[in-house]
């Protein structure tokens, strides 16, 4: 699932995606800015390196599944490597801090989502802390949500031609989520001839994420419900949930590895 509906899509849209990702989420910015000088921070799923440029007193390293996104980080002078977040090539107990911002919601099964949190936890040193954020199912909790566009008329979610992924709806951007497992469309703005308003349904398993002439991509998301991320964390021994909160359409957990 993730190869076609996450990894390949991000490689194709990397530059455009990077151009739309310039504002740091406030809670993440605050977290990174408060880290003690000389600490080591890893950004798991660092994307275009948005958070790697904050707080020059902290040593930062980023990793991402997308080579194209890592290249953007590299060109900005950041330390990065390509890896799968389920297999982070660091020894146990290495990092003082970790962040993983808007990453784990791309994992297509509960097991993989748990494995992703476990892997971040593994590389933290005892006493270390990690901030994880995921997209929330509940988009209008604090009125500040800039995601929902109230003028967008909600249509019924389309169904899939392929039965094996028929439970996953195509989400309509800027409307409330109808279900937790969704494909979220991304229109590649670099192609002026592409798009239109009709969404091309994702092809069946075994094909690539896009038809050759289509400029619309579908990213898989599992949006989290209230308390769900905490439940994942609570399955891990010696993990303390220090803080759990909602900010601008995201569920966030600050966790600590017991020393």
């Amino acid at each position, binding site marked *: 699932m993730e190869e076609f509906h996450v990894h390949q899509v991000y490689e194709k849209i990397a530059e455009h995606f990077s151009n739309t990702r310039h504002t740091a989420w406030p809670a993440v910015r605050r977290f990174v800015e408060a880290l003690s000088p000389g600490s080591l921070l890893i950004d798991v799923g660092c994307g275009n390196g948005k958070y790697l440029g904050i707080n020059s007193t902290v040593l930062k390293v980023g990793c991402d599944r997308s080579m194209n996104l890592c290249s953007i980080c590299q060109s900005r002078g950041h*330390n990065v*490597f390509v*890896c799968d977040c389920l297999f982070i090539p660091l020894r146990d107990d290495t990092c003082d801090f970790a962040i993983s911002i808007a990453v784990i919601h791309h994992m297509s099964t509960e097991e993989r989502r748990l494995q992703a949190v476990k892997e971040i936890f593994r590389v933290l040193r005892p006493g270390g802390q990690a901030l994880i954020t995921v997209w929330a199912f509940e988009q209008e909790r604090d009125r500040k949500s800039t995601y929902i566009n109230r003028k967008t008329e909600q249509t019924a979610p389309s169904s899939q031609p392929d039965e094996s992924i028929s439970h996953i709806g195509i989400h309509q951007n800027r409307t409330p989520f109808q279900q937790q497992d969704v494909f979220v469309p991304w229109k590649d703005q670099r192609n002026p001839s592409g798009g239109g308003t009709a969404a091309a349904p994702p092809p069946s398993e075994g094909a690539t994420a896009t038809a050759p002439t289509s400029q619309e991509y579908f990213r898989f998301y599992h949006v989290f419900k209230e308390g769900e991320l905490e439940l994942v964390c609570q399955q891990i021994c010696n993990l303390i949930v220090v803080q759990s909160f909602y900010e601008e359409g995201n569920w966030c957990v600050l966790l600590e590895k017991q020393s």
Partner: protein
Amino acid sequence: MKLFTHNLLTSSIIKGVTKGYPLKIVSRKVEISEKEFNPELIARLLSRVEWSALCEAAESVGHGGDLPTSVPENAEKDEEFLRKAHHVLMEIEVVDGDLVCPETGRQFPIQNGIPNMLLNEGEV
């Protein structure tokens, strides 16, 4: 890839590998560039660095000559030492090469300064 980054990386994520650290470096293109020296940062970083792995890495890219074999006493006040450490950790960039698993010999390519640590299906 800076040697600071290399100092963190391991191949022990490969199924069955127990000794994946430190990775060997095979370099094809190395660049040196000046980076701002922050003695406090380097001093704090020292406790997180595997010094012998760093020396080995510096040696393998041809820049190991100057480094002591172990971190000296009161290193945090030793500016000359901190400058050497800074140079090796932050100013040497392996742009093109491979990282090699010490146990299996499996190569991870470094291209454009970015190590690619993705595993194949059989390795997980």
